[in-house]
């Protein structure tokens, strides 16, 4: 069968599955809509969290980024997994015991202040919107490449699917759909990786294959280092960025991960504190399957690409190059007219430009795998994008219905709140879709900075709220505002006001805007502690609450006010 036929069949089947699950598990109450009724098993929640967390960027782009940055790409691998350790040890169990529905709920109650709550809502909305726009774009790209329809129609179709199951099913529908999506996406990612690893190194486990020898008996990574340095690039296994910068970016990504509202909220769906701990462990185990395979896919991808294109005749390139040239993700330009492709570090002489997304999307074609693998990959990429989009939409709708409406209209009926939540989700789908079709030029950059902002605003305030009973609302609000304003100003200055100064010589302490969230976080901690020292301690009932969330017994399911 043709690639296109396979893609329609596999993507169609997976969509039918998601919709079936959504209808079967639709939410009837606000509790089911916000936290799936608090009855999800730790294993299912772990899978759902993994699907929620691994976005279109993890699935499609991350391996490609590592292909072209080698060791420097480790910041994403360590950053996006190490954050789970912080989440599991420092946040999840306590927030589960606290037992409300959202992160702003916690901030508002712990700091006995609606002002703090509103600041938290604004942070949550900002982070979630930038993220969701990126997911919709991912859906559009997959549709346009694999189903050969215009990108706009791809986005609209994706919107309809997400709208259907997020708005109807709420957290309950989303959770069980995400479990299915995890299975689809991990299968789709692993199958081509295993095939390629077998072909190159004879070892079916990509994690081991990456450290094995290729057909001529040399180690893959050593050979890659040699080939790349010969072409004028830096060696694959050595870094190009400053160590201080790598350190700070990794830290910002870790802490940002732990502060992301759509990840934290997943831990409200399990019945007990001990389940929250365990499900964070399952989540990271499921995530690590993809995250330890991705660096292998990255190394195989760049190796295969150089082997099959570099120094080859322009009119005799493999068929996949022609296929992907249609999408402009790869371009060959025979500048010196010698009929041979030169892939070199020198920009003037280089004749081959490759978009990072190719490394995963084209991997089945590069390795000459059967057509159904290509269709499977399309279904997997779609699962990754849709599951993350749905989780984010839920945070947006909850923030609006619960943290904004409920705060100012405490007597609203549950039915009305549910209606507002669904309306908000619907509105958010439309806005996200609009940005997916007309992406502002800076979307990709803003997504990366969302982590820095989450690190500098949420993380310190939540940690201090649990581990110190002395931190008060004055400290928390001034800390959040300082962290946010500092980080945002640094980013806006270097990215939008004076992009020409965005180089090492001008950065403070050699820290790039991507890593500045770490400094923002330290500032937030510092201000928070100092201001709290000079202002009155929190009232007694808040102090009692802090003691209460520190012990697991008596968690019960998540409660309304």
């Amino acid at each position, binding site marked *: 069968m043709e690639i296109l036929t396979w893609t329609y069949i596999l993507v169609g089947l997976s969509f039918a599955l998601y919709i079936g699950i959504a209808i079967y598990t639709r939410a009837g109450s606000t509790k089911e809509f916000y936290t799936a009724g608090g009855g999800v098993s730790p294993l299912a929640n772990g899978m759902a969290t993994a699907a929620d967390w691994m976005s279109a960027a993890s699935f499609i782009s991350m391996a490609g980024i*590592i292909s072209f940055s080698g*060791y420097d*790409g*480790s910041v994403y*691998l*360590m950053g996006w*997994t*190490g954050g*789970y*350790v*912080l989440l*599991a*040890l*420092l946040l999840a*169990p306590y927030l589960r015991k606290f037992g409300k529905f959202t992160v702003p709920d916690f901030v508002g109650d712990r700091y006995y202040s609606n002002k703090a709550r509103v600041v938290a809502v604004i942070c949550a909305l900002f982070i979630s919107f930038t993220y969701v726009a990126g997911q919709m774009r991912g859906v559009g790209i997959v549709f346009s490449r694999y189903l050969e329809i215009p990108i706009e129609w791809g986005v609209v179709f994706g919107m309809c699917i997400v709208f259907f199951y997020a708005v109807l099913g709420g957290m309950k529908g989303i959770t069980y759909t995400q479990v299915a999506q995890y299975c689809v996406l991990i299968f789709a990612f692993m199958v081509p990786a295993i095939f390629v690893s077998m072909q190159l190194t004879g070892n079916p486990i990509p*994690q*081991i294959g*990456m*450290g*094995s*020898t290729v057909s001529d008996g040399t*180690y*893959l*990574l*050593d050979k890659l280092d040699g080939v790349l340095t010969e072409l004028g690039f830096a060696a694959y*296994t*050595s*870094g190009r960025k400053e*160590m201080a910068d*790598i*350190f700070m970016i*990794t*830290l910002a990504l870790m802490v940002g991960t732990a502060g992301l509202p759509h990840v934290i909220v997943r831990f409200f769906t399990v019945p*007990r*504190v*001990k389940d929250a*701990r*365990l499900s*964070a*462990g399952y989540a*990271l*185990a499921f995530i*690590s399957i993809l*995250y*330890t395979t991705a*660096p292998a896919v990255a190394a195989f991808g760049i190796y295969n690409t150089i082997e099959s294109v570099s120094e080859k005749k322009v009119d005799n390139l493999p068929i996949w190059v022609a296929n992907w040239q249609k999408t402009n993700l790869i371009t060959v330009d025979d500048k010196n007219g010698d009929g041979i492709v030169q892939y070199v570090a020198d920009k003037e002489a280089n004749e081959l430009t490759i978009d990072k997304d190719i490394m995963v999307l084209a991997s089945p074609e590069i390795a000459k795998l059967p057509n159904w693998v290509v269709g499977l990959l399309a279904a997997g990429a779609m699962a990754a994008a849709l599951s993350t989009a749905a989780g984010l939409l839920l945070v947006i709708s909850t923030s609006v219905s619960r943290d904004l409406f409920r705060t100012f209209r405490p007597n609203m009926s549950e039915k009305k709140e549910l209606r507002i939540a669904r309306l908000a989700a619907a509105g958010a789908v439309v806005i996200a879709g609009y940005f997916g079709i007309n992406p502002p030029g800076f979307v990709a950059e803003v997504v990366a900075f969302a982590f820095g902002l989450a690190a500098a605003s949420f993380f310190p305030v939540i940690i201090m709220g649990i581990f110190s009973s002395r931190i008060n609302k004055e400290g928390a609000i001034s800390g959040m505002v300082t962290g946010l304003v500092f980080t945002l100003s640094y980013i806006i200055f270097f990215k939008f006001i004076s992009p020409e100064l965005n180089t090492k010589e001008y950065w403070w302490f050699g820290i790039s805007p991507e890593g500045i969230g770490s400094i923002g976080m330290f500032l937030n901690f510092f201000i928070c502690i100092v201001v709290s020292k000079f202002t009155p301690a929190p009232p007694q009932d808040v102090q009692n609450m802090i*003691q209460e969330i*520190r*012990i*697991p*017994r*008596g*968690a019960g399911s998540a409660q309304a006010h």
Partner: protein
Amino acid sequence: MPKSKMQQYWNKNLKTLFYLLVVWFVVSFGFGIIGVDYLNQFHIGGFKLGFWFAQQGSIFTFVILIFIYVVRMNKLDKEFDVNED
């Protein structure tokens, strides 16, 4: 639960967190970033050791850390009679 007992439980919890976070820091920031050049002179299979920690080893360690935490805390909860169910 009496206050002193509660404080004892909390201190033990903090101690557990401290040890686990030290390991967390050492495998990622220590081996994967600060000490990467030094460790790269050693090899496991075709991997330079520092590079391996940055792209694989730290992630495996993270998973193990969380499961150690789960087991340790469940034990502690039982010991202080604050466990659920």
